[in-house]
């Protein structure tokens, strides 16, 4: 929202400090500024000039004008404006003037004529938006006068308030509201030109007669009050320069005096209003009615709104005039021929306006204000201000009949809040003197009654609609105006409680450390949102259609990802363009439908990519280490079961089935390890080999909470070992050879491991095993050793691994 400081000065005398200081204080006390714009510096250089002589310029549409700039000085300038004529008074920018667009006026030569400066349009000086011709001044203005003296209001500073910082302040969507803030900030008086005598003087301009239009408000609508009046014999014409200038500076395009007054009053007092051409209203009654059945309505801007039974309309005999709180229809709009007006100033329920506005997709200056919950007691003042300006700018016009008001909600007492001063100071952490509390609240319009160390504070109606409802709201008012910068930071006195992150948090940290220091991997982040395109490229069969967003802005990110794997494959495809090999990991979430709506699974994914080498064994070893890290002592790695798991769907084409393993424990599957299938790699244009590990952090965090480890006394007696070589099928994992031995605990055998593997003919291989032997409390006899060896050999034999001679 744009605010003119000159306009604000209509109501409050700002101190003689720099505008930077003023705007700085607005930021610290009231609302955030988006910008400050200075207007009218150029008017200090621009002078009033009279056109004395005009000559056509050969081969040009321009004219050569000799102008008098007072003090006996004359200049020759070139001018192309259609309205230039001898004897007119207009504005002249001399050579050296810096224009609002930043350009400096220089001597220009066109068609052999030198132009010393130029004559200006309103738009060129940012006086207004009219660029159709030169500024036309009255005959009485003396030549040579500075333009700033002719248009003093146009030398102005406009501040741009961040609308978001006013969301809670229905009273601040206008100049008068900000004038009150500034009066409080500077401790100066806020003028109230809208008092009872003013009201009476305006209403005195009316002809006593019956109101030409009656109003009927259906209580089933969202109407919170409806004031109306009629004015006859207005003359629609351009607004005077001051009015056009102010509207222009606060970003509203001037149209004609009637429309401009409507906008002006809204920007001054914060309540939207409507002015209708009464000749275009059918019948003598207008009604506020709810929409009965779905219908459509043509709006002022020519678009069509589709309405529903929750919306409210203002209608006449013929049909809709206005979509309540949002915008008018085209039919009753004021035009150049309008003579008689109907003025409407209404208030509407904030939530109803907001709902309709969001649904039909139309947001206007009106709806923006109604959404904030406006004060119905201000309808009357707003209506009178509009009548005031219309009758002032159209002196021959007359108010016809009384000012009507109806549809007001039952009158309620203004809320009164008990404010304890000790509590105020406890919350702010400082001590504001009681007289300052009183001064600030009073200046903001609150009524304060002191009672010991507390105050009974009555909220003004314009702050009572929603904004101020409890003592904390008052504490904010006092705090901000007193100055937050005066509060000294203080450490709290509080209990000391040892803290330790939750198991999942701890695990996320230790697994990230593990992936960096043990996995030698780089951490990446990918989007939790995904699109069908990537899921299809990854051949991922679960599409999470249940978790598609209503308002995604891109089909590439329109749903929650069902797995970290497609995202990781995408990252792999991207990075293999830059690097020959790499390892990366991500700690993230996957999302699946379930529970109340969606289940979020905390997972870690690790990817190792190389051009040639297969890294499955390294990936499996990494997982074993990770299980040890998390004390998951009952978890084992085993070939992936055929049903698939929550990590990878059964028969996912992207996985090399023969390499796939799962982390299994009695509590379920908590991870997978696999190589990506060459077919998927090819289709994703990845040239190389990739191994992937996915682990459920939810499952592992469970293990971390319980450290199962226990010390066993060290056996200091010497250990010995026996090597045995057996033969096995070439494609039997050596792990199977060990597994049989480890399952049967052989007394004295404390470890079994592989020494070497070498290939044999006939699809066989020789596997040399080492048995680690140690006896508790002593050393083995030769017989005992032989017995160990024999037991081992016979187990191996019965498992299909005969001893090689």
């Amino acid at each position: 929202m744009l605010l003119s400081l000159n306009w604000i000065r209509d109501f409050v005398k700002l101190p003689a400090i720099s505008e930077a200081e003023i705007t700085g204080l607005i930021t610290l006390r009231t609302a955030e500024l988006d910008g400050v714009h200075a207007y009218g510096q150029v008017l200090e250089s621009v002078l009033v000039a009279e056109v004395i002589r005009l000559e056509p310029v050969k081969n040009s549409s321009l004219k050569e004008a000799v102008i008098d700039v007072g003090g006996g000085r004359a200049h020759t300038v070139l001018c192309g404006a259609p309205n230039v004529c001898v004897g007119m008074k207009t504005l002249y920018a001399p050579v050296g003037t810096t224009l609002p667009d930043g350009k400096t006026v220089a001597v220009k030569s066109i068609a052999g004529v030198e132009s010393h400066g130029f004559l200006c349009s309103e738009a060129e000086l940012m006086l207004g938006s009219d660029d159709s011709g030169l500024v036309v001044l009255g005959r009485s203005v003396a030549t040579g006068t500075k333009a700033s003296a002719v248009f003093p209001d146009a030398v102005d500073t406009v501040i741009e308030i961040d609308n978001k910082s006013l969301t809670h302040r229905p009273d601040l969507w206008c100049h008068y509201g900000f004038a009150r803030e500034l009066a409080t900030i500077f401790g100066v008086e806020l003028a109230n030109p809208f008092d009872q005598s003013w009201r009476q003087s305006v209403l005195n301009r009316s002809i006593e007669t019956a109101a030409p239009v009656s109003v009927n408000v259906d209580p089933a609508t969202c109407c919170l009050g409806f004031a109306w009046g009629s004015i006859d014999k207005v003359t629609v014409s351009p607004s005077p320069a001051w009015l056009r200038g102010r509207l222009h500076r606060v970003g509203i395009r001037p149209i004609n005096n009637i429309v401009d007054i409507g906008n002006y009053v809204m920007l001054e007092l914060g309540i939207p209003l409507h002015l209708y051409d009464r000749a275009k209203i059918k019948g003598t009654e207008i009604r506020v009615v709810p929409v009965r059945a779905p219908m459509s309505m043509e709006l002022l801007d020519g678009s069509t709104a589709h309405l529903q039974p929750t919306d409210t309309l203002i209608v006449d005999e013929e049909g809709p005039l206005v979509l309540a709180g949002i915008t008018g229809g085209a039919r009753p709009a004021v035009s150049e021929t309008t003579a008689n007006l109907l003025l409407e100033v209404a208030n509407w329920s904030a939530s109803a306006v907001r709902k309709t506005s969001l649904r039909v997709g139309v947001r206007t200056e009106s709806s923006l204000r109604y959404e904030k919950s406006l004060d119905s007691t201000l309808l009357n003042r707003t209506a009178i201000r509009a009548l005031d300006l219309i009758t002032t700018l159209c002196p021959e016009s007359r108010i016809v009949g009384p000012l009507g008001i109806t549809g007001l909600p039952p009158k309620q007492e203004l809320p009164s809040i008990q404010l304890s001063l000790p509590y105020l100071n406890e919350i702010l952490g400082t001590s504001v003197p009681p007289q300052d509390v009183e001064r600030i609240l009073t200046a903001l319009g609150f009524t304060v009654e002191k009672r010991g160390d507390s105050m009974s504070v009555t909220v003004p109606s314009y702050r009572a609609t929603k904004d101020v409802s409890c003592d904390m709201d008052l504490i904010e008012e006092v705090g901000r105006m007193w100055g937050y910068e005066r509060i000294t930071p203080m450490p709290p006195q509080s209990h000391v409680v040892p803290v330790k992150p939750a198991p999942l948090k701890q695990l996320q940290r230790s697994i990230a450390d593990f992936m960096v220091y043990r996995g030698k991997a780089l951490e990446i982040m990918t989007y939790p949102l995904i699109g069908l395109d990537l899921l299809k490229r990854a051949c991922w069969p679960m599409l999470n259609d249940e978790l598609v967003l209503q308002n995604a802005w891109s089909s590439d990110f329109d749903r929650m990802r069902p797995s970290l794997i497609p995202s990781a494959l995408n990252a792999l495809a991207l990075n293999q363009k830059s690097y020959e090999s790499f390892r990366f990991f991500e700690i993230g979430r996957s999302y699946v439908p379930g529970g109340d709506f969606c289940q979020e699974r905390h997972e870690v994914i690790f990817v190792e990519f190389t051009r040639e080498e297969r890294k499955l064994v390294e990936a499996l070893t990494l997982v074993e280490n990770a299980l040890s890290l998390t004390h998951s002592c009952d978890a084992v790695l085993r070939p992936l079961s055929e049903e698939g798991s929550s990590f990878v769907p059964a028969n996912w084409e992207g996985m090399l089935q023969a390499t796939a393993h799962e982390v299994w424990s009695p509590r379920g599957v908590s991870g997978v390890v696999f190589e990506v299938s060459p077919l998927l790699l090819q289709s994703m244009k990845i040239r190389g080999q990739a191994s992937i590990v996915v682990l459920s952090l939810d499952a592992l965090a469970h293990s971390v909470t319980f450290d199962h480890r226990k010390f066993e006394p060290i056996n200091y007696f010497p250990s010995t070992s026996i090597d045995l070589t057996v033969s096995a099928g070439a494609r039997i994992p050596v792990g199977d050879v060990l597994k049989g031995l480890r399952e049967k605990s052989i007394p004295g055998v404390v470890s079994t491991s592989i020494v070497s593997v070498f290939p044999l003919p006939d699809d066989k291989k020789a596997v040399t095993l080492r048995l680690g032997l140690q006896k508790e409390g002593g050393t083995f006899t030769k017989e005992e050793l032989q017995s160990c060896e024999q037991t081992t050999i016979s187990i191996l034999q019965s498992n299909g691994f005969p001893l090689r001679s």
Partner: protein
Amino acid sequence: MSQTKPEVTRIGGLQATYDDFCAALSTCSTEAALADLKASLIGGKGTITQLMKGLKDLPLEERREFGVKANEIKDLIEEKSRTRLAEIRRQEALRAVEASWIDPSLRESNVTGGLNAAGFHPLTLVQREVEDVFLGMGFQILDGPHVETDYYNFEALNIPRDHPARDMQDTFWFPDLEHLLRTHTSAVQARGMQLYRPPFKFIAPGKCFRCERTDASHEMMFHQVEGMMVDKGVSVAHLTYFMNVILNHIFGRSVKVRLRPGFFPFVEPGFELDINCLICSGAGCSVCKHSGWVELLPCGMIHPAVLRTGNIDPTEYSGFAFGLGLDRLLMMRYGINDIRLIHSSDLRLSAQFKTF
């Protein structure tokens, strides 16, 4: 005299043999050659062994004299051999090392090939740092779901259905209009209050989502750290104290902060916290739009309605809450110029922040 000559020769032979041994020892360069040399003297058929075999025919006196000498020499031979052996082994080890020379400069950093870097995402670095500062001051760390309900993201934060404040946040909605992607970590506030009774203090770092077009400074996903402290008598002065301490830690220098009014329905009073511009130290530059201050985080005293939602009596307890954006902090610290890089999965980003 002629009788004694052979005996003299015998002893002399012993000495000569030893002298020969000493001469040969220095040319012995392998363990095997040394073993052979030793064997040729004191082995079964060795010269000294042979000489000793002939002793039994000699008179006792001579036998003793010769025996003493022979044993002396044997000991010397043993000792010299041991010394020589150690020397040979040392030489051999050195030769082996010499033969298998390793190029010490053939390190990963000098060799072409893959990316061998490992390390954390820079956002993790910043997040951990922030977490650690708060942990050190006794704040618990919480998190909540990304897919949230209207209740936790809005209702519980004093933002009812038709509140215009909902416009401040471009929300990603699911079609039921009941579930959404959390727009701020403030959604964890009500969850935290369900978990703890006052006094408590916690932070909730995590991802948030806003439905907006992305560019170098806007991203649909970003990271915040929510913070909340509730106790008896918590004040604005305590809030500014914590913010001061934390920001000094994070920026590693003394940072000036100021509060100004800011509207968020879940705090009252609500503030925008500015820090003095670290680029120009407050003198005014393009980064701070010549104001000397940079907006850093929203904060405020927890609204009584929010406390009541958490079954906390606002007449007994008060508290503060704040929300710190991590992405901008990260970008400020390392000079990252495009927020979209954070989720890009590009290792060319991560590799610049490698641990090793």
